[in-house]
């Protein structure tokens, strides 16, 4: 043995190693067959493009699948998972290196590479993998967090993996003990195992025999484990990274439009109606339960659990998907009705996924934000809602009322027959007159007042939004914003009665038809209003309008430069047009509206402005920024009576109150409605909900410093009463 060239004999003590290749054949057959049958199931779905833009995809792949940023949001799970998969990957590379050495003559098993990588690194990572597994077992079986459910499968494959790792070290230890490997110290764990074997006083022949047995045993276990991959949740080893690569690159807030003229089905009521990527999603789930933990509906005991939606659909696909593969005779889009042995196939929407579950979703996107493997729950839930809303015309009563009102009145608030311009009584808010000939800019005292023509002098079109225009509490916010805009010298105008609901409510209910009708009307109006002259921006105080105008109208020919009022106010402050001189002596916490934060990544603008308020103390709420807890009003649920479980808005109100802040600042009319209601119930008049615009109104009021009064939240500067 040449002591100057570190190495070891590959396949020491093993005879008939070629048997290994014979055994590998069925393993590979099982592996590829498994994935092939899955591939056939995914292909039941409709086509969609997910391979464009590979640079962005690779970058996201690196962050999601290699660095695994999202996994590390929870430190323990992050490291645990990193140890296991990192260990597995390194050991796999080590094994591959053996093959390189053996068949291609790459000298991986000698020299410094052998010492540092094949011995030391492999040993350390093997140990880390064991540590990771121990952490996993401890958490799953001792800590038992509710987000993890325990199936026998988990125990089997965790145990199997542990055995593979331990037998690996046993083999190494025995080899070192028998061959008295001079480089044993480079394999510290193997060395320790060797020391242990020697300490037992075992005879060398026994060790040789044991080594040979362990080697084959280890091989068999490892092969069994590989064969299991496509049949257990280990599938995610392959599917999760692929899913991250194929994630949606579109704006987060954009739902895929349906071409209603050509559509052969509406929404999704069976597997054929999903895209192949939506079916692929189901097999990419790691069952980690992060989405479940994030979900406000699940937290308040609704029958919705995003993890269960994914897993129930997955199980349905695995069990009944093969029946879909036989071509349906008459309707190519229909689901199979029964199994070959005559059992009925359960209906996907209604039985597999309960309607109540679908209607509990606030579309807050917390699940998608939490999911480490980029599964797209919300579009899937929305597709099933679309089926219910459009094909079945079935939805909760409050939503049906909103639809009825939208159909006839262009806004979703039943019973609020007033004019859109009622809120601006007494304020100088110019209303654009888009009728032929237009008009000149003038102070509008209400409906039918003189308006400004499309050629009028304005830089910013303020999209008021239905909630701001019709809801009494939010009208105050609109009035505050009007004052703030005036103080900053912004030349703005509103559309008055020509504004219709953007259709967000209709779209999130699932009524794409109504949404597209409204979108068409609004795009025509906006294109007329913004058409000629210099480029103009749209500012809106409603994150739902913001999201729809910005990300969804482009699909219908409306391309606009849209800012949310929190961003716009920030710009005005930064450019010195707005001076926050007035004192606002308050402890404030900021509630991130889902459609502003998670959907559009606006987190810092409102926070900066709050910090700039003199006298104000800002405290962070539990579940802030990307993990914000929904107010309960998204997805048109603001129109629905929450009858099941506890109230989402009360849960959020309690979280807000726990900060000790007396003011909960938000920037969305639905959040305002929900939080004001929740706070009233949970903390009486102690804590108030205010919109950022109202605080800024206070800070910019010429009257000077004034404390924000508790109660209804009306600003003293508000001339409305």
């Amino acid at each position, binding site marked *: 043995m040449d002591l100057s060239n570190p190495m070891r004999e590959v396949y020491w003590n093993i005879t008939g190693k070629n048997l290994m290749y014979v055994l590998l054949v069925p393993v590979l057959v099982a592996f590829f067959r498994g994935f092939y049958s899955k591939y056939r199931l995914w292909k039941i779905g409709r086509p969609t493009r997910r391979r464009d833009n590979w640079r962005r995809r690779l970058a996201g792949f690196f962050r999601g699948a290699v660095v695994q940023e999202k996994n590390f949001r929870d430190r323990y799970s992050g490291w645990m998972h990193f140890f296991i998969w990192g260990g597995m990957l390194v050991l796999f590379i080590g094994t591959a290196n053996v093959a390189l050495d053996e068949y291609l003559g790459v000298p991986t098993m000698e020299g410094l590479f052998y010492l540092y990588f094949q011995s030391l690194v492999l040993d350390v990572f093997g140990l880390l993998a064991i540590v990771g597994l121990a952490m996993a077992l401890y958490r799953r079986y001792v800590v038992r967090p509710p987000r993890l459910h325990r199936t026998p499968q988990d125990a089997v494959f965790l145990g199997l993996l542990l055995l593979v790792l331990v037998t690996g070290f046993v083999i190494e230890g025995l080899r070192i003990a028998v061959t008295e490997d001079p480089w044993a110290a480079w394999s510290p764990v193997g060395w320790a195992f060797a020391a242990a074997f020697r300490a037992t006083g075992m005879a060398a022949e026994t060790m040789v025999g044991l080594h040979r047995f362990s080697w084959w045993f280890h091989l068999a276990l490892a092969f069994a484990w590989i064969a299991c991959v496509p049949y257990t949740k280990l599938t995610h080893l392959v599917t999760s990274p692929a899913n991250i690569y194929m994630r949606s690159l579109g704006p987060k807030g954009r739902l895929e439009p349906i071409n209603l003229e050509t559509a052969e089905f509406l929404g999704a009521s069976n597997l054929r109606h999903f895209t192949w990527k939506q079916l692929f999603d189901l097999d990419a789930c790691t069952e980690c339960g992060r989405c479940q933990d994030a979900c406000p509906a699940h937290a308040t005991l609704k029958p919705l659990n995003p993890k269960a939606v994914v897993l129930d659909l997955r199980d349905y696909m695995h069990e009944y998907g093969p029946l879909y593969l036989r071509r349906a005779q008459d309707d190519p889009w229909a689901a199979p009705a029964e199994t070959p042995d005559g059992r009925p196939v359960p209906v996907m929407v209604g039985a597999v996924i309960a309607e109540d579950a679908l209607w509990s979703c606030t579309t807050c996107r917390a699940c998608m934000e939490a999911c480490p493997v980029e599964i797209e729950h919300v579009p899937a839930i929305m597709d099933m809602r679309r089926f219910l809303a459009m094909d079945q015309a079935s939805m909760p009563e409050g939503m049906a009322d909103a639809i009825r009102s939208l159909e006839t009145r262009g806004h979703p608030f039943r019973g609020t*027959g007033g004019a859109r311009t009622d809120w601006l009584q007494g304020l100088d808010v110019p209303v654009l007159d888009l009728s032929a000939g237009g008009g000149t800019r003038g102070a509008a005292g209400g409906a039918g007042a003189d308006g400004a023509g499309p050629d009028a002098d304005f830089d910013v079109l303020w999209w008021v939004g239905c909630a701001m225009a019709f809801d009494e509490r939010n009208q105050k916010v609109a009035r505050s914003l009007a004052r703030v805009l005036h103080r900053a010298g912004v030349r703005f105008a509103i559309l008055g009665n020509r504004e219709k609901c953007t259709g967000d409510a209709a779209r999130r209910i699932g009524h794409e038809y109504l949404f597209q009708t409204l979108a068409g009307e609004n795009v025509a109006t906006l294109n007329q209003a913004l058409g000629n002259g210099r480029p103009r921006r749209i500012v809106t105080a409603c994150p739902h309008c913001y999201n729809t105008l910005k990300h969804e109208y482009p699909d219908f020919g409306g391309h606009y430069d849209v800012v949310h009022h929190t961003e716009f106010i920030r710009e005005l402050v930064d450019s010195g047009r707005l001076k926050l001189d007035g004192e606002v002596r308050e402890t404030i916490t900021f509630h991130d509206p889902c459609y502003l934060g998670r959907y559009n990544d606006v987190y810092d603008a409102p926070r900066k402005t709050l910090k700039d308020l003199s006298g104000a103390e800002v405290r962070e709420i539990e579940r802030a920024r990307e993990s914000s807890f929904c107010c309960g009003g998204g997805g048109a649920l603001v129109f629905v009576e929450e009858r099941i479980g506890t109230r989402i808005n009360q849960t959020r109100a309690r979280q807000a109150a726990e900060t000790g802040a007396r003011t909960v600042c938000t920037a969305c009319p639905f959040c305002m409605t929900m939080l004001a209601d929740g706070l009233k119930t949970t903390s009486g008049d102690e804590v108030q909900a205010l919109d950022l615009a109202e605080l800024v109104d206070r800070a910019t009021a010429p009257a000077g410093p004034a404390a924000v009064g508790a109660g209804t939240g009306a600003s003293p500067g508000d001339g409305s009463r």
Partner: protein
Amino acid sequence: MNIVVCLKQIIDYEIPPRAFRIDRQKKKPAMPDASLVIGPFDENALEVALQLREKAGGGRITAVSMGPESAIEALRKALAVTADEAVLLSDPAFSDLDPFGTARVLGAAIKKLGGADLVLTGRQSGDWDAGQVGQLLAEELGAPCVNFAFRAEPGGDGRVRLYKETPGGAEILEAGTPVVATVTNAETNQLRLAKVRDLMAANRKPVPTWSAADLGLDPAALAAGRIEVLDLYVPTYDARCEFVTGETPEDKASALARRLVELKLV
């Protein structure tokens, strides 16, 4: 069974008093931007018809509306919830008819349709709220009339079983055909939402328009109304809250009680 449902398109009944405007000269509401909707009880009537057709396992529903061109929207909505046919009755001679005139026109249309087994209308329109047309239509057709119906089912021998709301509860009645029923709201008869497929099909369906000439009606005779509106105005007590005053809560309560009696509210 042939069912005819009469629908009226009206100005949005949810407009609050403070936003309600009229043109006193024309004696008409003046809110050009207001939404137009189907009268609420007419919607109930349509739902009653749809449920009857389901229970009977068949039948034909024809929606009829007398009104301006815009009323076609009301009829499209009826088609969208699967009314089988719709007819618009529109003619300059039909504008501003009193209930007698309206009933005459509707009656002529129903006769032109070949008659009906059951004619449903709302108990009142939801705008002028006269509450007459259904009953007058019964007279035009020589049919009996059941008022305040909220549900209809097929009865024995081709009769119709009608559920009528009464102050003390309900009556179940059986009527021979033809019969007219005016419909009131109940938990069971809120108009369903349309399925999108039906909505889209409704937009493509032709809706014939019949004029006075088509119905063989003499415009001059129609114009001779039986009533005349002398004035239309917005009552002033609606304008703002009148606060009842008094030293003690008891005084205020007494003052309130007196006002309620004076205003004939109790």
